[in-house]
């Protein structure tokens, strides 16, 4: 139900804006598959380029003092008078104003679906959500914001981070993201408020900042407390976070951790990929059963026999079954294949086997405790 509402909303927004004409796939690019780190390991970001370190450290200390001397006391005073649910509304209001930046950058990266989500969020929250003070798009329709900015867009198209910068007021950045920040300013309402009245523009930015700090007092202190060299820790945290954001690995994009193939096909996967396909399975969950039938049929194009042992199991069950079978008999060629909404587990009978041989294989597998096993060709 939720899914349908979400889809309808996205569709509505595409249609009203005529974006479907642009064609997202034409813009899509930037494959990260090649340099994915092994499962559970970190991507090597390479050595940092920080020729301005002395200056950056000065600005780091400036921002640090700014936080402790101005931002934090202001935020504490403010939160004393204003209840946290109101501050959350203020946060949502500013967040909603940031929607154009996210919409444009999703579009620039060819992420048409995410663009639809952001557009839908903007429309819903600006109207039913009372000019963005609440977030019904998330609470009612399950639409989560897709954080994108110009720095990420540039990174998506392969622009390197350049030298590290610690900007006064803005904090950690780099050459690419600083350019992005300036570009995104064209879509930020505070820029236009500031054009007619620079004081009001600054007040707006500061208000947003103080409000945000009031909801996360203690985070920066804890971060600083945990570090041996807070400047280096901050620089590294920024690089790691940006690198993963560009590869959509921070929130919602976890499937990228596991090197899932870019396309649903080939659905024949090696043992090692049994888990990797899990994210893929979730993404292609909407595939119709009829399509599955077709896919099953084409498994047997090479006339090989196949003993299906389980149908529609979860990724975890599949891995356990696979391990169980391998521990029983090493020469089983256990394969998992992923057909959209469900996963099948099977054992491939070696090529060239006769029907009688294949039937014996099937009997053996049934005897091993998989009573539902059935031979297919």
């Amino acid at each position, binding site marked *: 139900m939720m899914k349908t509402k979400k889809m309808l909303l996205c569709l509505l927004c595409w249609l009203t804006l005529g974006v479907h004409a642009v064609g997202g796939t034409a813009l899509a690019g930037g494959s990260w598959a090649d340099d994915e780190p092994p*499962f559970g390991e970190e991507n090597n970001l390479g050595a940092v380029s920080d020729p301005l370190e002395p200056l950056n450290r000065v600005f780091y200390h400036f921002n640090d003092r700014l936080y402790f001397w101005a931002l934090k006391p202001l935020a504490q005073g403010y939160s004393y008078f204003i209840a946290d649910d109101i501050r959350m509304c203020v946060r949502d209001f500013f967040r909603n104003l940031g929607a154009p930046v996210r919409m444009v950058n999703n579009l620039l990266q060819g992420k048409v679906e995410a663009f639809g989500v952001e557009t839908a969020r903007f429309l819903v929250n600006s109207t039913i959500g009372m000019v963005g003070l609440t977030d019904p798009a998330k609470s009612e329709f399950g639409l989560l914001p897709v954080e994108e900015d110009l720095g990420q867009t540039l990174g998506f198209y392969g622009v390197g981070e350049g030298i590290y910068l610690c900007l006064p007021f803005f904090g950690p950045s780099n050459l690419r993201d600083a350019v992005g920040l300036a570009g995104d300013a064209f879509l930020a309402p505070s820029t236009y408020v500031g054009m007619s009245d620079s004081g009001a523009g600054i007040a707006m930015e500061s208000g947003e900042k103080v409000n945000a700090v009031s909801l996360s007092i203690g985070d920066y202190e804890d971060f600083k407390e945990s570090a041996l060299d807070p400047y280096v820790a901050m620089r590294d945290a920024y690089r*790691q976070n940006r690198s993963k954001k560009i590869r959509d690995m921070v929130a919602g994009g976890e499937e990228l951790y596991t090197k899932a193939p870019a396309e649903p096909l080939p659905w024949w996967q090696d043992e090692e990929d049994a888990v990797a396909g899990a994210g893929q399975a979730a993404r292609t969950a909407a595939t119709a059963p009829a399509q599955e039938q077709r896919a099953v049929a084409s498994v047997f194009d090479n006339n090989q026999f196949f003993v299906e042992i389980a149908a529609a199991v979860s990724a975890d069950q599949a891995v356990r079954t696979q391990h169980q079978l391998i521990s029983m008999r090493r020469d089983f060629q256990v394969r998992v294949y992923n057909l959209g909404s469900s996963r099948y587990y099977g054992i491939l009978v070696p090529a060239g086997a006769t029907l009688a041989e294949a039937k014996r294989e099937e009997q053996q597998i049934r005897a091993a405790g998989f009573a539902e096993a059935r031979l297919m060709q």
Partner: protein
Amino acid sequence: MQPRPLLATEAEPVTFIKEGVDQIISILQDQKYAGAAMKTERRNRVYAIVERKFDFREMSMRTLARHWKDRNPTEQDRFTSLFRQVLENTYITKIETYSGERVVFKKHEVQGDKAIVYSDLVRNNVETPVNYKLRNSGGRWAVYDVEVEGVSLVNNYRTQFASILEKENFDGLLVRLEEKVRKGQAD
């Protein structure tokens, strides 16, 4: 790599983490341990759980990276013990500020002897992704890295240690860790 057969009795990675998180939350909410007098007792109980779930030696190896194998076993043990204390001291204060945040477990993935558990920490209606990376050795899972909002803790410390070791020797690093531990205990 040949997939490792899983034993039926083995806890799933997500259960393994969830169990620890639930135990810690129940200690923090337990009125028995409330109040300043019980602070040490409460901390010790939390540490006991953390030590069952984390592999501090593996974390130390990973943060020191190439510097690890240049050290003798005594130095390695010393480093592991100091690093563990630094982590415990700095994160315990964070844990103690717990005020009803929710931890949502999204999924877990297993590949060979490694697993990643994906969770969200929900505070003020905002989700912070927290991922635990685990390794199975001898049929037991243990966390070797935690990633918060895409920032790996091990990577972050590795960068800091490498930067310190560029300017100072290993003993210098140990001294700095000792100072950090002393300062942390004073809090």
